[in-house]
């Protein structure tokens, strides 16, 4: 617990600076504890043990807006919780945002620096959103906002009359915060393991870069979009037999989406072609094959204060003749003046016979205090499937948060 003191000190300094500069300062303190619901021969019982302080400040100026948002944490489960690593977010500091936004001309906005980037229509499914995700946080029951990992990027938006255009340039690959044996065990190709996954991550600035684009406009009440991406697979799905390390092969993605009101609800469709540039022939066993990914979803209020949504998702790998179908369901019930929330999100794949259940109960005790209990339950008939490999990682977590 010796890292608590530096956190307090940092908190004090940031607060003092914020007050002196007369900027808006807010944040929260979040304590969270998670346990496996079964034994894992490769890992201990704890999936979460942390105390987190988030400080957020937005500085509105006439010419620009500056945003800084950072987490300071004590993490009892992370392997390297004493070392600051802003890329992986491990260690006592996880810098979420540090950016400047300005409007050089009426028809364009620029945001440069560390930022959270999101687009696309899927609900906890991503096809054209290739911005970094944090699967460790997601699977261990941290707040849903942590599913999005920060990008270090130049984000430019243009607003000509015919459409809106977003361009995101990331000079050095921002990979996902993927499952690497730190918190969860996983399938390494031959068996389950809790060992650290060894990877070779491209990290040369301006050569190992990523470029993402979106063009969108609303026609009648339907929001249409087209996307393009050039970069890398965001998790180390490749393998180098010489170095015996996992790699991030080159990837381009082209896709489209549509979203709009339908029969009193919201319907969405999204598709994308994953062009695995390192193995277009689909013959290299160490590089993932190209894929077609599709999703269709619908959300509707079932009765007052109870909303339901369903999605169908397909990953088609033509070279392997393989399909993975996934169905998701979401139910959200608000009770007691919207202070009590009961939620359930499920993934289920009928052909891989695996799935993932995310139940959650949260209660706002006061405007400042919130209590939460959530679960992450993985199941699968085989241990090599996407969710099946995490069956020993199923966990429940509880949290208490004070927002200010």
């Amino acid at each position: 617990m010796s890292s608590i003191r530096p956190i307090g000190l940092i908190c004090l300094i940031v607060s003092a600076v914020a007050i002196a500069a007369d900027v808006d300062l807010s944040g929260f303190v979040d304590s969270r504890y998670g346990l496996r619901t079964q034994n894992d021969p490769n890992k201990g019982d704890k999936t979460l043990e942390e105390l987190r302080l988030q400080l957020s400040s937005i500085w509105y100026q006439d010419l620009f807006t500056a945003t800084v948002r950072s987490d300071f944490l004590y993490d009892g489960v992370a392997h390297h919780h004493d070392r600051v690593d802003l890329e992986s977010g491990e260690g006592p500091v996880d810098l979420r945002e540090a950016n400047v936004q300005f409007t050089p001309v009426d028809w364009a906005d620029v945001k440069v620096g560390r930022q959270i980037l999101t687009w696309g229509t899927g609900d906890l499914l991503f096809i054209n959103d290739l911005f970094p995700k944090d699967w460790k946080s997601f699977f261990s029951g941290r707040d849903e906002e942590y599913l999005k990992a920060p990008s270090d990027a130049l984000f430019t938006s243009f607003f000509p009359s015919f459409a809106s255009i977003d361009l995101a340039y990331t000079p050095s690959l921002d990979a996902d915060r993927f499952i690497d044996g730190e918190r969860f065990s996983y399938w390494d190709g031959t068996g389950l393991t809790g060992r650290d996954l060894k990877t070779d991550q491209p990290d040369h600035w301006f050569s190992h870069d990523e470029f993402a684009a979106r063009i969108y406009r609303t026609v009648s009440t339907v929001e249409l979009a087209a996307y393009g991406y050039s970069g890398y697979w965001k998790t180390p799905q490749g393998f180098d037999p010489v170095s015996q390390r996992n790699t991030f092969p080159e990837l381009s993605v082209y896709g489209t989406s549509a979203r709009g009101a339908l029969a009193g609800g919201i319907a969405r469709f999204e598709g994308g072609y994953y062009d695995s540039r390192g193995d277009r022939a689909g013959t290299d066993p160490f590089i993932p094959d190209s894929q077609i990914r599709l999703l269709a979803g619908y959300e509707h209020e079932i009765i007052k204060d109870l909303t339901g949504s369903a999605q169908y998702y397909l990953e088609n790998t033509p070279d392997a003749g393989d399909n993975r179908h996934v169905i998701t369901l979401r139910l959200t019930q608000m009770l007691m003046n919207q202070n009590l929330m009961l939620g359930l999100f499920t993934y289920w794949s009928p052909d891989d016979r695996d799935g993932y259940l995310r139940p959650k109960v949260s209660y706002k005790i006061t405007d400042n205090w919130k209590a939460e209990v959530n679960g992450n339950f993985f199941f699968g008939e085989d241990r090599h499937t996407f969710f099946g490999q995490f069956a020993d990682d199923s966990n429940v977590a509880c949290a208490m948060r004070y927002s200010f």
Partner: protein
Amino acid sequence: MKTLITAVLTLASVHAFALTVDEIVEKANQAAYYAGNDGQADVKMVITDAGGGERIRELRILRLNTGAGTQKFYVYFKAPADVRNQVFMVWKEVEQGKDDSRWLFLPALNLVKPIAPGDKRTSFVGSDFVYEDVSGRALWEDTHELISETDTQYLIKNTPKNPGAVDFSEYTVTIDKQTFLPVKAEYLDKNGKLFRRVEAVKSETVQGRPTVTESRVDDLVRGGHTVNFFSNIRYDIGLNEQLFTERFLRRPPREATK
């Protein structure tokens, strides 16, 4: 002869100045929800539950009239802390068969999320106000009847054409004859029992427009109430329709943050 002329003129003027019930509800609707071409207000919402527990919401509302009864709303949350900087946007429709479009912007995820249209009698941000209290209820959804009038007020009874879609069997609205602001609305449940009351507690004239500056709703069944305090009210500030788009959800404009 002179008497006759006077009598005819008097009759004519009475006829000319007696408003029909539809004219009254139309004028009241305009006064309550459409003042100016656009407007802004800061709202402090104090939600008190039956046990006396208090919760507070602070938000800035920007509103633009976009013609034929349609409107756009931009709601920027300032408090409580867990929803700070979130934005709720509505494109309001009044035509029968058309649903409002609603979006929520969650800054921590940089996510613009469309919200399924849903029940308009659902609580607005956990308060005793419902969405319809905030953006107005389309006039065609009820039949209106002038029950009585005094020197200063009209009393209108409103009966829903589709009673299955709402939580009340009828409601009466008291309208001030001078300002046409609705000053009280009382809702009866399916058994004809009063269960909900909305009141304009205070009003002022802002830029020549009668404006409610404090409103209160009482949940007479559960015992809770919510009071809205409006400040920084301005009309005709020249809001650009561009502001009510995804661009400005992701980048709240000065009109919302200042």
